[in-house]
C-alpha cells in the first residue's frame, strides 16, 4: 500500500455565501459556478479566476439554482418564487410561483423548459421565453404523491424523488403521468437523486449512509443490475455512525461519480466496477453540494452545515474548487488476476 497523497481540499473561493449553501452548479460552457444559499442570495463565480461575477438577492432563502445558458440562469426560492436571472444586466424576473417553498429546479435543453419541484407536492414546467406573467410562462402543473426533495434530468427522462420514498420517472415529452412509479430501494428518506450521464438509470442517496444504483430498464435483466452500497459511515467506540449522503455528482466524461456526506468526506466511485476510486481529505463540515465542471477537470465542493442536527454552532460555509486528477476519477479496467500470490 503506497502512501496517501498529501491531503488537499482545493482552492477556497473568496466571498462565499454567508449562510448555508443549498446548491452549486458549473456552467455547461465555461468554468462559471452558480451558487444558491440560505442567505437569500444567488452568486455567480468565475471558478478559474476565483472572482465573484454577480449576486442576486431574493425575498427568501434560495434552495436551488441552475444555468440556462452562460448568460442567464434560474433559481428556486423559499419565498415560493421561481426566478430567471440575467447575469450581464444583473436583472431578474419572476417566472412564476408555487404554493410552497420551491425545493429544486432544472433546465431541460431537450425541451427548453424549466422544471421546478416544490413542497406544495407539485412539479411545474415553465417556458422561460414567456413574458413575466405566470399564465404565459407556466406550461403545466403535475401533482406528486409527496413534497419534492430532489430531481434530476437526463435527455428526456426526469427523475423526481419525494418525501415518503417515492420516485417518479417521467418522460418530458409526455408529462401527463409518470412513465414509472417506484419506491426507493433504500429504507430511509431520500436525500439526493442524480441520473447517469449515459441515461440508463439513476443513483439515489438516503439520509442513512447508503446509495442505490437503479436502472430504467424494467426487464429482469435490466433490474438484475441494480444494487446498493453503504458509504459515509464511521465506526467510533464500537458504535457505527451513519451520515446522510447529501450530494451525488457524475463525472461528465468517465461516468464515475462523487458522493458527499455529512461526515465531510467526498468519495469517488466507479459504479460499473463497484469500486471506490478515491477519497478526498475531510472537509471542515458537511458536504452540502458537489459539481463537476463541464470537462470534469474541476470539482466544486460546498462545505456547509446542512442543519442535520438543528441550529447549532458550526464551521463557516465555504466553497472549494479542486482540480481533479484523472487517476482519481478514471475507471480502472477490471483488475487483472495476479497468480503469483
Amino acid at each position: 500500500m503506497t502512501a496517501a497523497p498529501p491531503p488537499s481540499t482545493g482552492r477556497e473561493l473568496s466571498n462565499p455565501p454567508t449562510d448555508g449553501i443549498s446548491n452549486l452548479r458549473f456552467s455547461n460552457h465555461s468554468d462559471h459556478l452558480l451558487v444558491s444559499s440560505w442567505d437569500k442570495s444567488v452568486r455567480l463565480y468565475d471558478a478559474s479566476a476565483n472572482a465573484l461575477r454577480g449576486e442576486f438577492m431574493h425575498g427568501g432563502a434560495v434552495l436551488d439554482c441552475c444555468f440556462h445558458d452562460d448568460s442567464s440562469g434560474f433559481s428556486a426560492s423559499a419565498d415560493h418564487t421561481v426566478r430567471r436571472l440575467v447575469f450581464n444586466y444583473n436583472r431578474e424576473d419572476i417566472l412564476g410561483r408555487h404554493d410552497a417553498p420551491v425545493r429544486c429546479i432544472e433546465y431541460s435543453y431537450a425541451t427548453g423548459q424549466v422544471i421546478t419541484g416544490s413542497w406544495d407536492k407539485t412539479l411545474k414546467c415553465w417556458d422561460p421565453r414567456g413574458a413575466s406573467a405566470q399564465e404565459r410562462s407556466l406550461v403545466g402543473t403535475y401533482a406528486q404523491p409527496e413534497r419534492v426533495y430532489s430531481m434530476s434530468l437526463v435527455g428526456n427522462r426526469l427523475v423526481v424523488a419525494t418525501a415518503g420514498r417515492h420516485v417518479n420517472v417521467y418522460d418530458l415529452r409526455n408529462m401527463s403521468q409518470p412513465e414509472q412509479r417506484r419506491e426507493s430501494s433504500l429504507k430511509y428518506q431520500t436525500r439526493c437523486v442524480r441520473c447517469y450521464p449515459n441515461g440508463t438509470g439513476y443513483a439515489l442517496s438516503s439520509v442513512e449512509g447508503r446509495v442505490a444504483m437503479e436502472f430504467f430498464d424494467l426487464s429482469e435483466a435490466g433490474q438484475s443490475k441494480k444494487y446498493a452500497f453503504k458509504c459515509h459511515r464511521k465506526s467510533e467506540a464500537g458504535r457505527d455512525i451513519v451520515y446522510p449522503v447529501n450530494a451525488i455528482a457524475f463525472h461528465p466524461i468517465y461516468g464515475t461519480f462523487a458522493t458527499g456526506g455529512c461526515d465531510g468526506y467526498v468519495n469517488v466511485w466507479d459504479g460499473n466496477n463497484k469500486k471506490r476510486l478515491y477519497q478526498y481529505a475531510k472537509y471542515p463540515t458537511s458536504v452540502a453540494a458537489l459539481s463537476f465542471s463541464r470537462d470534469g477537470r474541476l470539482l466544486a465542493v460546498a462545505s456547509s452545515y446542512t442543519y442535520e442536527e438543528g441550529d447549532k454552532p458550526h464551521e463557516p460555509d465555504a466553497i472549494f474548487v479542486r482540480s481533479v486528477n484523472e487517476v482519481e476519477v478514471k475507471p480502472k479496467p477490471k483488475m487483472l488476476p495476479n497468480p503469483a500470490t
Partner: protein
Amino acid sequence: MDSVYLFPPLSFWISDALCFGSLLSQQASHNRYIYQGLEMESTCGSLLFELQKIWDEVGEADNERDKMLFELEQECLDAYKRKVDQASRCRAQLRQAVADAEAQLADIYAALGDRPVHMNKSSGSLKKELHAIMPQLEDMKKKRNERKSQFAEVLKQINSISKELSGSTEDNLTTMIIDEHDLSMKRLDDLQSQLLLLQKEKGERLRQVLDQLNVLNALCMVLGMDFKSTVCSVHPTLGDSSGTKSISADTIKSLSATICRLKDVKLQRMQRVHIFSSQVFAKQFIQLSYLLHFQLQELAMTMVELWNLMDTPVEEQHMFQSVTRTIAAAENEITEPNSLSLEFIDNAETEVMRLQEMKMSKIKEVISRKREILEEICRGAHMVVDGQFGTDLSVESIESGAISPSDLLEQLEFQISKVKEEAFSRKEILEKVQKWLAAREEESWLEEYNRDDNRYNAGRGTHLMLKRAEKARVIVNKIPAMVDALKSKAKTWEKERKTEFLYDGVGLISMIDEYCELKHLKEQERQKQRDQKKLQGQLMTEQEAIYGSKPSPSKSSNKRKKNNGGGPVKQHSSNASNSQKHAEFLTLRKALSPISSLCSNIISCNFEDQNAKTGEFKDTQTAYKTPSATPTKTVSAYDENRTPKTMPIPLPATPPTMSNAMQTATTPFTPGIRGVEEVEYSYEERRAGFVSTKLHSRPLSLV
C-alpha cells in the same frame, strides 16, 4: 389793352393825321376801337381845344406851346412803343409754349412707339393752337404714365423671379430702371415674354424642388431620419410646408447632393442588412441541418423536441421578417418606413449577435450530444473512448479557433460512423463475451454458495437458491467450450483487423489466457489438495494401525487443517490481517465446486470480510432481514440496520491509492415502513420552518 388806344386820336389830332389815319385804318376792323377812337378823338380834340383856350388866356408863347405839344406827342409814342413790345413778347411766349407742347407730344409718341399724330397746323391763332394741343398732350402724358406703370409692374415681376432664381437677396437694380425713351408695346411684349419665360422656369424649378423633397422624404422615412431637419439644413425655407420654398440653383444642387448622400447611406445600410440577412440564413441553415440531423437519427424521439426548436425561430423570425424580406428587394423597392433606420439595423445586428451566440451554444450542444452518442456507442461496444479520437474534438477547440464547428461535426460524424462500423463487427464477439462474463459471474456465485454451510437449511427462498445453483452448474460446465469458441472468434477478428481486440481497454485474448491460467492453477491446487487428503487418509490408517483408533470423520473435517490457500483471497492485500481467517472459510468450498472468477471475486471477498469479522456465517441478505432490537434506537425504522452497527467497517482511515470495492448489499424489497413512521421532514423543511408543530421530533439523521 384798351389803354393802348387811349392816345392815338390825340396824335392824329395834333400832328400826323396820315400816320394816325393809317394806324386807325389798321384797326378799322375793330368797330369798337373805331368807336372808341372817335370818342377819344373827340376827347383829345376837346382837351386840345381846352388847352389852346387856356394858353390863349395865359398868353403862352407859341414856341412854348409847340414844345409842350411835342412833349405830349413824345409821351404818347413811348406809351405805344411799350405796349407793342409787351404784345410781341406775349406772342413769342405763346409760340414757345405751342412749340414745346408739340415737341413733348412728339417725344411721347416716339417713346410710345405710336405713329406721330398728324397735327393740323396753323388753324387759327396761336392761342387756339395752344388750346388744341394742350389736352392732347395731357392725354398722351397719362397714356405714357400708364405704360410706364405697366413696365414697372412687369419689370418688378421679372426682377423678383430672377432674384428667386438666382437666390440672391439684394435687388437687381439695373433691371429696375425703366428706360424712359422706349416704352413701346414691342418692348412691353418682349418683357412680358421674358417674364413668361421666367415664370415657366420658376414653375419648373419648383416642381424639381418638390420632386426632390418627395424623394428626400421617402429616403428619410426609410432611413429613420428627421426629414425636416435634413431639409432645413439644406435651406431653411424648405422645411416650411406652407411658405415659399427656395428654388435657387444652389438649393437644387445641394438638394440633389443630399439625395445622393442619403442614397449612398441607404445602399451601405442595405449591404449591412444583406450581410445580416445572409447571417440569419446561415443560422437558419445550421439550425435546419441540426434539425435534419436529429430527424434522421432519432426521428421518433425528437418529434416534440423538433416542435419546440421550430418554435423559437418562428417567433424570432416574425420580428425580423421585414429584414429578411429585404434580401430579395432591390434598392428602389425598399420603401417601408424605418426599415433601414439606424436603430432598426442596430437592433437587427444585436439580434444577429444574440443568434450567433445562440448558434454557438446550439453547436456546442450538438457537438456535446454527438460526443455523447460517440461515447455511448463506444461504451456499448466496450471500446475505450479515449483511444478513438483525440481530445481536440471538443467544444474548447472551437472556441480557440483550432477547428471550425462544421469540421468538428464532420470529424465527429466520421468517428461515429467508424465506431459504429467497428461496433457492428465486434457485436458477435461481444455477445459471446457477455455470455462468458455472465457465466463467470454464475461460477463465482456458485463457488460462494458452495462455501455456505447453511445452504441446505430449510428457510425462505432456499428452493430458489437450489434452482439457481443447478442452473449455474450447467452453465459452468459449458464455460470451457465457450472460452474456446470465443478465443477462436477473437483470433479471426484480430487477424482480419490486424489489431488487438480490446475489451474496455484490456486485450480479450490476454483476459481469456489469464482466466485459463488461473483456472489451471486452481485445478493444480485442487489436485494437490486431493493428494494431501489421500496422504492424510493413509496417515490415518497408519495411526489406526498404531493406536487402534480412528479419528471421527466429523472432527477430521477441521477447517484449520484444510487450508487450501485460495488464490483470490490472498490478492486482497488491504485486508491482509484477515487472510488467515479467510483461508479458514474458503476451505468450506466443496471439492468439485467451480472456482470463482477473479472479476467477481472482489465483491464476494468483501462479503466474506464482513462475515469473517463478525464470525457469523450469514448471508448478508439474511443479516438484514433479521432485525435485532437494540435499545439505543427510538425510531423503529432504525432497527433494520442494527446488525451493521456491531460490525467494524473495513474502510481505511487514509485514502487508499488502490481502489476499494464497494460495500454492496442488495437491499431487500421489504414493504415500506412508512406506516409506522411519523411524517418525515427533510433538514431543509425543518430549517425553513415548513414543519407542522405536532410533528417536530428529533432529527432522524444521525445515530
